[in-house]
């Protein structure tokens, strides 16, 4: 690395240098000795940034604690999550995601804590890094005949069974998947495990896109905005048009509009 005589450089020049190159710790130490206030501010900003990255890394490692136990033994772990248990319309979507032990997508978290934009950024990253991914869709008919809880279990099992690699362990968000693979049921799993978090993002993005397409087939319920949840627009649509083919008849208030 080129070494600079920092004292001689103007603050705008230093700023430019900082955006174009990455300084090592020693260079930052020298900068920290600089008495100019502008430089001190730059140093403080850098420290804050470093702290944030460090926190993110530590939290990431923390959220890999369940996976690591199995990775260390050379086992594959799948994270399973579901999206769409609450809505009045559309399917329940489940995803099974098998991540490699080398995974380093620090932003993976519970899909509910991420913006739609962030989820869409992470989706292709997860797809390209994952060892395997499988998405399963449990239809509204399945939900009506089986009840939502059992339909979710069946759909989760399907997403696991459709994986091309066989994981030796499952991490599941607050459910037990009816498959013959050892599993850990984690309360608030999507925020505690990277694999479950990744599954929640994949399922969420997939289902949101699906509902956007259903909005074109069944307009008038605002599916692209509400994803089938009972918003005002959705309820007004129900009142005006009655239930469409993807409404869950067993759910209230859909029931009331059945002839």
């Amino acid at each position: 690395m080129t070494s600079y005589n920092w004292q001689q450089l103007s603050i705008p020049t230093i700023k430019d240098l900082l955006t174009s190159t990455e300084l090592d710790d020693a260079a930052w130490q020298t900068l920290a000795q600089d008495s100019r206030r502008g430089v001190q501010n730059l140093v403080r900003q850098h420290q804050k940034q470093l702290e944030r990255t460090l926190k993110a890394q530590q939290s990431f490692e923390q959220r890999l604690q369940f996976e690591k136990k199995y990775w260390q033994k050379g086992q594959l772990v799948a994270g399973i999550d579901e999206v769409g248990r609450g809505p009045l319309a559309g399917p329940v979507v489940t995803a099974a995601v098998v991540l490699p032990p080398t995974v380093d997508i620090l932003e993976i978290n519970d899909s509910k804590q991420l913006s739609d934009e962030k989820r869409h950024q992470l989706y292709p990253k997860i797809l390209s890094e994952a060892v395997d991914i499988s998405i399963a869709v449990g239809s509204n008919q399945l939900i009506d005949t089986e009840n939502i809880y059992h339909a979710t279990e069946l759909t989760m099992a399907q997403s696991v069974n459709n994986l091309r690699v066989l994981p030796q362990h499952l991490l599941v968000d607050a459910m037990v998947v009816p498959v013959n693979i050892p599993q850990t049921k984690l309360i608030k799993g999507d925020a505690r495990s990277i694999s479950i978090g990744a599954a929640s993002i994949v399922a969420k993005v997939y289902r949101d896109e699906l509902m956007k397409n259903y909005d074109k087939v069944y307009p008038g319920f605002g599916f692209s905005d509400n994803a089938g949840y009972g918003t005002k627009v959705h309820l007004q649509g129900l009142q005006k048009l009655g239930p469409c083919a993807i409404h869950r008849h067993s759910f209230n208030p859909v029931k009331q509009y059945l002839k």
Partner: protein
Amino acid sequence: MGLNYLIRQLSQTGCVSNQLILKVCGQYYQETTDYHKLLHWVKQQLPVAKQESFIQKLAQPLDMTIPFITFFDAAYPKKLQQIYNPPAILYYQGDLTLLQIKSVAIVGARLSTSYTQTIVHSLVPQLVQHQLVSVSGLALGADACCHQITLEQQGKTIAVLGNGIDYFYPQQNQVLQKQIAAKGLLLSEYPPSTRPKKFYFPQRNRIIAGLCDSLLVTQAKQRSGSLITAQLALQENRNVWAAPGPIDSALSKGCNQLIAAGASPYYEAYDLINELIN
């Protein structure tokens, strides 16, 4: 408390780079052997943001039963001492005496074909006959092939890992990793329970390049990890060999380029071994 303990402890924190550990060793020999002063010095070198977590991690108990050697041990190979940024610490499992024997690193693509097997089969029995050691990185493809065939031939092999020694990665090589621990030598500069990370693998490659006397690349794409290893080996004055391949094979492009740039073309074991033992 001795220098080895200090190195082991700094390595375990995961906050201190290898280069900084080496600098602390310099401090130990030139300035002070006082344990607390040295720790304080390290802390001063770290960015403020890292200092707190460094102190926290220092306080955690240290499992000294896990075998390791440091730069300063007699078992640490001379040729590795001479490379740029030599690992200050190496955790190991298996037969350390293998480090004192002349060795050939065999590396190549993870998605290598039967061509790699042909090449490895042509060399390894000869290596074993001359009681030389094979070195590789326990990745899929060429690496696994190198270790596997060496073991089949009752030879000795060293695997350098990009994760903690107690971690099984990749999953497909779990059995092989156990066999190497029992019959050969596993090495890693990362403390136990360290999960593999992508940027550890190029780091691991410098150790492979440093440990070997000669290096053979079987199949490699352009801009691949194997080429990084070959580049590092060239910088450290190792004999670099590459197996020539068809000009229309993406997996041989890296090898053909290496030859064009001056690496010796490998087409039979005799030349390589001859150069090594004479």
